[in-house]
């Protein structure tokens, strides 16, 4: 159908949807008047039962840990999918990669400081996720971002060991598979899948919360590698050579 016809049909349809939304909203409890019970119950039981101060992370990695397992694999499948879809692109682009080294030492120094900062922030987010806000996903993305900065600031070679996709593939699988293995360990020992088996430790410390910590680290590894692999698929062969070209002309 023509674009005009599409707009003519879309308009009333969106108006109808808007009316439905309005009707639904009229029946919602007022903002700020959440009535529970699910969230309230978890706020009460998770800290004493799991020795984690961050109930959101306790929910993500323990009470609703299976959702997070699915989430890890959504990212995992997306990485595989992007690799599958872009395999022609990377194959046809056998041109040598230009390295475009940044000449200015001051810029490099700034970059190194930023990388150090990002790595630390990433690690901190991963490590303290089940105590304060943060966690494997956020930390993993920041960590991957830092390694990518290394690629931008440093020469291509600096990035190389991390960009070796065999290693990244393996690490990602260890992360995602590790999550499953922690869950299966509980199943083998006769409890339910993903049961928190390990010592719960003291609330508020890094060794608290039992297998939540393990799952958090597993997903941190998986997310870091997945993000790096995604970036590698999208970036490595194109953007930087292009920039170097721009700089040269």
């Amino acid at each position, binding site marked *: 159908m023509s674009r005009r016809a599409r707009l003519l049909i879309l308009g009333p349809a969106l108006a109808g949807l808007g009316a439905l939304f309005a009707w639904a909203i009229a029946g919602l409890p007022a*903002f700020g*008047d959440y009535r529970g019970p699910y969230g309230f119950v978890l706020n009460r039981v998770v800290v004493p039962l799991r020795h984690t101060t961050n109930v959101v992370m306790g929910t993500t990695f323990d009470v609703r840990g299976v959702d997070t397992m699915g989430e890890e694999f959504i990212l995992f499948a997306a990485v595989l999918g992007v690799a599958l879809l872009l395999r022609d692109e990377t194959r046809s682009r056998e041109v040598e990669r230009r390295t475009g080294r940044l000449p200015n030492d001051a810029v490099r120094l700034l970059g190194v400081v930023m990388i150090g900062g990002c790595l630390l922030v990433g690690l901190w987010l991963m490590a303290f996720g089940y105590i304060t806000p943060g966690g494997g*996903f*956020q930390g993993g*993305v*920041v960590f991957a971002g830092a390694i990518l900065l290394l690629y931008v600031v440093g020469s291509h070679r600096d990035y190389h060991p991390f960009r070796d996709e065999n290693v990244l593939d393996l690490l990602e699988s260890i992360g995602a598979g590790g999550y499953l293995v922690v869950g299966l360990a509980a199943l083998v020992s006769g409890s339910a899948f993903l049961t928190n088996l390990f010592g719960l430790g003291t609330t508020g410390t890094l060794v608290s919360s039992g297998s939540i910590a393990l799952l958090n680290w597993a997903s941190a590894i998986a997310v870091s590698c997945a*993000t790096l692999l995604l*970036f590698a698929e999208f970036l490595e062969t*194109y*953007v930087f050579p292009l920039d170097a070209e721009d700089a040269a002309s």
Partner: protein
Amino acid sequence: MVIATLVPLQFVAFGLVALGAPVVVLTRDPLRQALANGVYGVSLVLLFVVLEAPDPALSMLVVSGIGYPLVILAAIARVRGHDRAKKDGER
């Protein structure tokens, strides 16, 4: 029962998000849209913070600060690079 009202800061955050969405959608140029989407992402982060949701806020921050821009910009660069290469070829 608590009478539910919006704190002023929440009001501002919701307002920003409500403004941001049409701006992102109506910016038809992908590069500018990527920029607008970044600003929209920040307004979502602010909203999540004032809704007492630090974990989603952090997650949104890393996604709209690192994740989205990198893939979107890379895609734009590739598409433009192809176009340019093709133009060069025609010449």
